[in-house]
């Protein structure tokens, strides 16, 4: 699969693919032992330090991404998680061809993104959080038309896509609004629609629901799920919002300090920490005491009894551990190791 022909284009594969070829054909993103290093100036403190910095050549190397390997298959919606500064955006930037890896290989849709930035861009869509990629002053429909021309989308495909959009969300109110007049929710919606417009194989969404109210979040998640189902678009979703993860992702990849620390299904996550419970006890002063308990190691009743020795308990809640808690445990676990 060295040539950059559209996956799924009719007639591009003359003979029946072997099993290996079939699974390789399905791999839209392949990262092998990818690392990325940055040189950062060692800044010194104080007035004297600032003077020194004017002339210093003292750099330190920061490894933002450390030997990460992963594969993504067509049509997956992947939750890409990790604390801030963990290296998530750096990996995304490498996958979109904006940064070159220091070591390792990346292939996206059979292309090396950094070497073939233009061709790679034709088949991806990107929404990078707060920054709108649309023309600020133009009504949304005009932005769409420009994108149609830039990506050289055939007129029929363009019209079909708009029809699909109309069936999934109510776009009429925003279609003729300039982006600068839109609310945050409308802007996010527009950016996502714009990212899918040219029917890319992969869409990268970076924190798409940040700052939105609950109903808007639900709408956005519906849209993403709908587009993924109809168009089989692979979606890489970077997020801190567990609601996004629960609603959309079947698989999660967690990055921390540049390393991949988890790569598996979301269900596996639950079984991984299935024995964990969150115990919340309301004390006599009205405050809630919250503890995460591993039932394999600790007896819940014992904890309650111990607490009763010191406080009166007014109320008890025992819940399954949330996805968020699980992830936090994984972060802590990776730090300990």
């Amino acid at each position, binding site marked *: 699969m060295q040539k950059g022909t559209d996956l799924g284009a009719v007639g591009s594969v003359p003979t029946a693919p072997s099993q290996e070829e079939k699974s390789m054909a399905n791999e839209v993103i392949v990262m092998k032992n990818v690392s990325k290093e940055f040189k950062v100036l060692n800044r010194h403190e104080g*007035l004297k330090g*600032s*003077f020194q*910095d*004017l002339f210093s050549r003292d750099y330190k190397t920061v490894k933002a991404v450390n030997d990460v390997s992963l594969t993504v298959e067509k049509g997956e919606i992947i939750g890409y998680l990790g604390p801030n500064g963990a290296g998530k955006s750096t990996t995304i930037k490498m996958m979109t061809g904006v940064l070159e890896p220091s070591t390792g290989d990346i292939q996206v849709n059979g292309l090396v993104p950094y070497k073939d930035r233009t061709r790679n861009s034709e088949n991806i869509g990107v929404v990078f959080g707060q920054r709108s990629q649309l023309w600020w002053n133009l009504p949304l429909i005009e932005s769409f038309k420009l994108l149609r021309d830039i990506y050289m989308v055939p007129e029929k495909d363009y019209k079909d896509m708009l029809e699909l959009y109309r069936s999934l969300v109510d776009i009429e109110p925003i279609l003729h609004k300039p982006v600068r007049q839109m609310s945050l929710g409308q802007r996010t919606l527009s950016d996502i629609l714009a990212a899918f417009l040219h029917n890319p194989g992969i869409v990268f969404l970076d924190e798409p629901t940040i700052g939105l109210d609950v109903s808007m979040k639900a709408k956005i998640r519906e849209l993403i799920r709908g587009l993924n189902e109809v168009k089989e678009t692979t979606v890489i979703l970077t997020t801190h919002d567990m609601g996004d993860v629960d609603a959309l992702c079947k698989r999660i990849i967690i990055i921390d300090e540049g390393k991949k620390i988890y790569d598996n299904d979301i269900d596996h996550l639950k079984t991984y920490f299935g024995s964990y419970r969150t115990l919340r006890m309301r004390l006599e002063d009205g405050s809630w005491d919250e503890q995460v308990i591993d039932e394999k190691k600790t007896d819940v009743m014992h904890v309650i009894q111990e607490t009763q020795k010191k406080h009166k308990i007014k109320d008890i809640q025992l819940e399954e551990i949330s996805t968020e808690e699980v992830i936090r445990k994984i972060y802590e676990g990776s730090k300990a190791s």
Partner: protein
Amino acid sequence: MTGVKRLTALTRAGVMESLQFRLGTAVTLFGNLIYLALVYFLWKAIYDSCGASEVNGMTFYDTMIYLILATAIFNFLEMFIIWDMSRAIQSGEIIMHLLKPMRYRKYTFWSYSGSHVISFFLTFIPTFIVVMLVTKGAIPIGLNCVFFVVSLVMALVINFNIEMLVAPICLYTESTWGINIVKETIVLLLSGATIPLAFFPESFRRVVEYMPFRAVYDIPLKILLKKDGTNSLEGLLPMLGIQLIWCIVLTIAGNLFWNHAVKRITVNGG
């Protein structure tokens, strides 16, 4: 923190920020030197072509020194107040500033003061030294330098007030570049920074001398170069006096206008 400590802390922070600009400071200095060369060649050609060594009381050296130092002063006075302010408004940051206990005007003035201190030492002084070397000491060194610094500080205050008077207009009309450029062209032209006031046609010059702009460039430079009778106390004091008057007038006007404008801006909601 007491008032003075606060001001010192702000200045210090400004100094440190200015120092962070590694190549940037060197670039400004380098740019000044190149500009110096341009001015030198232009006026040399101008004077050579006209045949006279002195025109309207200015010799070639006079003109050259005057214009180069005017540029150095321009760099020193440079405040991106209007631009920073409009950006702060657009991002909503301005609300934070207006809530700060210290009044925003004072805060602005002192937070820029750090970069002015740096600018003075890293760009003005070297430019001054180079001019001295190139012209073989044509700038008189003496008490006039002390008065010059005093004059320069007043020029700074006047310039600051002009900026703060213009800033709200920019923000109200939402047109930063346009108003700013009008202000800049007017100030530079009528202050004698583009062409020394000595060359202005008589009647035009007399009108211009009643405006505050000459107090920003023309007066400090005259004091430094000991022109127009400023080498004697009787000639000097009226000049400083004019500057002082403009300082007071513009500070008061600036304060009034600013208070009025802040109400307008916060009403508009940014």
